[in-house]
């Protein structure tokens, strides 16, 4: 039922070019400003579309940069003209928080990985201590991403340390946690305490060789 003759090659090319140009215009004028806060022509600002991106937090890096570059107001009898504003002081979370206590015993040279499944934007407060120096890397692996990709948050792979404490907001949905390696010649015990909005934990003992296990975590009970 298609047209018997079909369009000429010239018409096809013109149509394709038209489609490309139209797509480029809509992208630059509306989609990029609204979705990512990228606004080369200023149309996003004109139409108020960049607010959408700001809502989604897409322009957060830019705001941080502005904050960093802003000149400090001199201390005096004047009040701050614009007090610094933190916009997301409260984040609703999707689940009740969990508290987790865990002990890892590592022989000399032993390694272990322990990570929590945390959704993007959810938080973890943690504190760990070891009886001896351990090398470590606090890192995360996204759920949606090729296997083996990870993001490092903090590490010491040279001398080793005996403790780590912090509060953490997951930059993406995935498993976030620690790799520990006993850097000394005697066995060590690592004690981890954490609270947060995680769903489950993944344990990867590397030495001695063990199976990867998923740990279901109980909800906090009153």
């Amino acid at each position: 039922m298609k047209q018997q003759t079909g369009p000429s090659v010239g018409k096809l090319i013109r149509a394709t070019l038209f489609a490309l140009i139209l797509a480029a215009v809509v992208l630059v004028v509306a989609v990029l400003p609204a979705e990512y806060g990228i606004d080369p022509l200023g149309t996003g600002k004109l139409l108020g579309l960049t607010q959408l991106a700001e809502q989604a937090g897409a322009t957060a890096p830019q705001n941080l940069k502005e904050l960093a570059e802003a000149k400090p107001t001199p201390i005096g009898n004047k009040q701050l003209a614009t007090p610094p504003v933190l916009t997301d002081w409260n984040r609703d979370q999707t689940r009740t928080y969990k508290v987790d206590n865990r002990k890892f015993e590592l022989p000399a040279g032993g390694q272990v990985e322990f990570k929590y499944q945390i959704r993007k934007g959810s938080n973890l407060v943690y504190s760990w201590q070891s009886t001896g120096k351990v090398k470590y890397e606090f890192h995360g692996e996204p759920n949606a991403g090729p296997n083996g990709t990870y993001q490092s948050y903090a590490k010491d792979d040279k001398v080793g340390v005996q403790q780590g404490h912090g509060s953490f907001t997951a930059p993406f949905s995935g498993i976030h946690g620690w790799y520990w390696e006993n850097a000394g010649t005697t066995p060590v015990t690592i004690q981890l305490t954490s609270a947060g909005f995680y769903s489950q934990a993944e344990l990867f003992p590397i030495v001695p060789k063990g199976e990867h296990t998923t740990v279901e975590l109980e909800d906090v009970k009153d």
Partner: protein
Amino acid sequence: MLKKLKVLTGMVVVVSVLALLPAVSYAHGVSEGDAKFVEANKGTAIGPFLYLGAKHMVTGYDHLLFLVGVIFFLYRLRDVVQYVTLFTIGHSVTLLAGVLGGLHANPYIIDAIIGLSVAYKAFDNMDGFKRLLGFQPNTKLAVLVFGLFHGFGLATKLQELALTQQGLVANILSFNVGVEIGQACALTAVLIALSYWRMRSGYMQHAFATNTLLMAGGFILVGYQLAGYLVTRS
């Protein structure tokens, strides 16, 4: 003069719909409230996952645009069923393999390819390949292969959520069945709209222009997703 005016009006309508796409884009991923449900859910929940699958398909404009392209020139119900079945097989395979088999792909790249599938089908409808390359690539194979990518897209949406292991298989299967139900609903609506349009004389006249716009829609999706890929990578 009047004809030109009509074409112009049509274009304005389509362009404004395209321009509104970003505004409804939150409907496309799994929305925040639904995500909360999935996160908090433990165990088998067939009903909710059926609904989520159906909702994802009905509000998923990339899947819908592709289907419009596929059935644009299909008149007989048998053909429609044939092509849609191929599409269904394709996306079911990768949805199940992706989530259950733990296959991971970058969601932006997958969604960009899905956008490309829209542009491809539109160009195909314009007899572009026959004219430009001198031969017609197998249309059924193309639908099957692009179906695979659409399934991957569905899988990445689910993988972004932390699904619990309990009742995983039943939940994914429910989601998949939901997707097919949603697809059937959406197809019915699209078919009704197309057949109404086909009764009018303008259909064949405007087929070329319509597919040009469909192609532009595909390109917009490609650009939108590629930009997202670049933004999140840097």
